[in-house]
């Protein structure tokens, strides 16, 4: 295939547009976080900081509990990720491979959960967690995040399970393995890309979650990053520089995580999963 110069130009233009669309806004915020406030709100914007300042970050770290929020977010996201992965992987095994009675019904019903608007469940879920003393705890937040992240993960897992030939299961049975041994020794290793995908999905879900965190957590020391960022949009006044630094920092860890394992996520989404 040869590409005509016109097509080559077009290709570059389209790619430039995509890069601009994806990275542009992020660059804009990150670069603003290194500007002085007066420069940020200047009517004629500057493409890069005229004077690079770190005061916004310094202020963020010395005067807010951002490091604490970061830690809380990491704890909640990691716990959500682990629990979600564990319960959806084993449930997927029961539904898609052991074909428990009602499996079809279950796999469909689980997605119907998305019918229920999350905002409406704020009140009843709060009451429920309050009754067992789990409001204002990170554990409570994990419980809610797992519940909301799981349905999509189960759905994602379907393709991965179905991509594993049933004959492997049968061969293992003949070889003398029981259902649990087969799960551990055959499915788990083969599901690795799928599990990688749901691990990241659950992590990102929890990382970006805002509505329940702001309802369930009241203690400053237990807040997560989105809440901390939300709080920077303060009362009667917004410190733009601080807000930009806060937004950049809320983005950074997820970006780093993605830089390291992102390609597994994408590979998982593209190879095993034939969703439908």
């Amino acid at each position, binding site marked *: 295939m040869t590409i005509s110069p016109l097509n080559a130009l077009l290709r570059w233009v389209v790619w430039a547009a995509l890069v601009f669309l994806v990275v542009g806004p992020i660059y804009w915020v990150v670069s603003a976080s290194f500007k002085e406030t007066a420069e940020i709100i200047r009517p004629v914007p500057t493409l890069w900081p005229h004077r690079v300042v770190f005061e916004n970050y310094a202020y963020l770290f010395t005067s807010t509990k951002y490091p604490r929020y970061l830690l809380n977010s990491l704890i909640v996201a990691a716990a959500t990720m682990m629990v979600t992965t564990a319960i959806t992987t084993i449930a997927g095994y029961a539904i898609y491979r052991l074909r428990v009675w009602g499996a079809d019904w279950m796999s469909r019903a689980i997605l119907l959960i998305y019918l229920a608007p999350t905002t409406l469940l704020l009140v009843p879920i709060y009451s429920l967690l309050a009754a067992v003393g789990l409001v204002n705890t990170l554990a409570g937040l994990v419980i809610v995040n797992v519940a909301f992240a799981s349905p999509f993960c189960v759905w994602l897992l379907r393709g991965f399970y179905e991509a594993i*030939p049933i*004959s*492997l299961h*049968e*061969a293992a*049975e*003949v070889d003398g393995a*029981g259902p649990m*041994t087969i799960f551990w020794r055959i499915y788990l290793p*083969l599901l690795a890309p799928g599990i990688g995908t749901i691990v990241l999905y659950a992590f990102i879900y929890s990382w970006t979650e805002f509505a329940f965190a702001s309802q369930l957590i009241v203690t400053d020391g237990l807040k997560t990053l989105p809440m901390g960022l939300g709080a920077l949009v303060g009362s009667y006044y917004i410190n733009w520089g601080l807000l930009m630094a806060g937004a950049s920092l809320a983005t950074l860890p997820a970006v780093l995580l993605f830089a390291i394992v992102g390609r597994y996520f994408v590979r998982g989404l593209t190879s095993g999963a034939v969703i439908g």
Partner: protein
Amino acid sequence: MSELQIRDVHKKYGVLEVIHSISLDVADGEFIALVGPSGCGKSTLLRLIAGLEEITSGEISIGGRAVNRLAPKQRDIAMVFQTYALYPHMNVEDNMSFSLRLAKVGEKERQERVGKAAEILGLQPYLKRYPRQLSGGQRQRVAMGRAIVRDPAIYLFDEPLSNLDSKLRVAMRSEIKENHQRLKTTTVYVTHDQIEAMTMADRIVVLNGGRIEQVGAPLDLYDKPDNLFVASFIGSPAMNFIEGTIRGGDFLAADGTAIPVGFSLPGDGRPLQLGIRPEHLRLSAEGIALYVRTIEPTGAETLIHGTLAGVPVAAIFRERIAAQPGQSITVSLDVDKTHLFDAATSMRI
């Protein structure tokens, strides 16, 4: 003792009955082939024996022990799958020793048994390789090796050669047979390829529509098929059939051609099928006309497709044939090699 007994086994999926009352005895050390067209229930029967499916009624026993409700792993069997079902994340050695590890066989014994099986199958150089690094034939050997290390009461093969190219298939065929002769383990072998069944099995079970049509040694089935189905299924090219009736000493075909068969039967006049294998037609100066459509010389013999007595037939001759498509030759039937079936019951007469 590892004989296999199947008593009046039924299998239903809901209302759909796929196995109708099958009974079969397989002796210790015997090599049995299950053949039949696709959908005949041969694979299902194998899976019932393996315990991968549960029988609806009846009884299966292995080595005198009823295994109806036992899980596959408790039945002391090994199975080779059509797709080989090698564990992609394990190397050859791990694949072969997986069952031993599950059975808590010690490391030393494991290595010994895997080593022995690998030696038999010529797999030693590949023990550390992963399935994706192997050729089709090598994978097939690993699948066999996995079965061999188990030293089970019964081997079950589910069309193990159908994914190989024809040359390899022939080679593997003799290898499996060789192994069986060495190990003398009871074997049930499913295939849709009757040549495979003929060449390998001690006895063949022909299945059709979930029923056993005939059980017997390969040549018995070939020489004395019980019914039209078996007659047409066994043998390649398939047996030729001519519809007609017996009139005196001749077989009167539907188009009026009289074919001398040299015997007469009582109850003349009922509709029959005359069966004759392609190699049992002979060239003769006088006889019945065979209108030639195509000629396929293979060197050793000549295969002719044509029309005889108004029906399409195949014929194999040792001789080279000079005739051209569109011409006719005259043939006669090897009268002691003809088969007669009742057209109504399709049973052998």
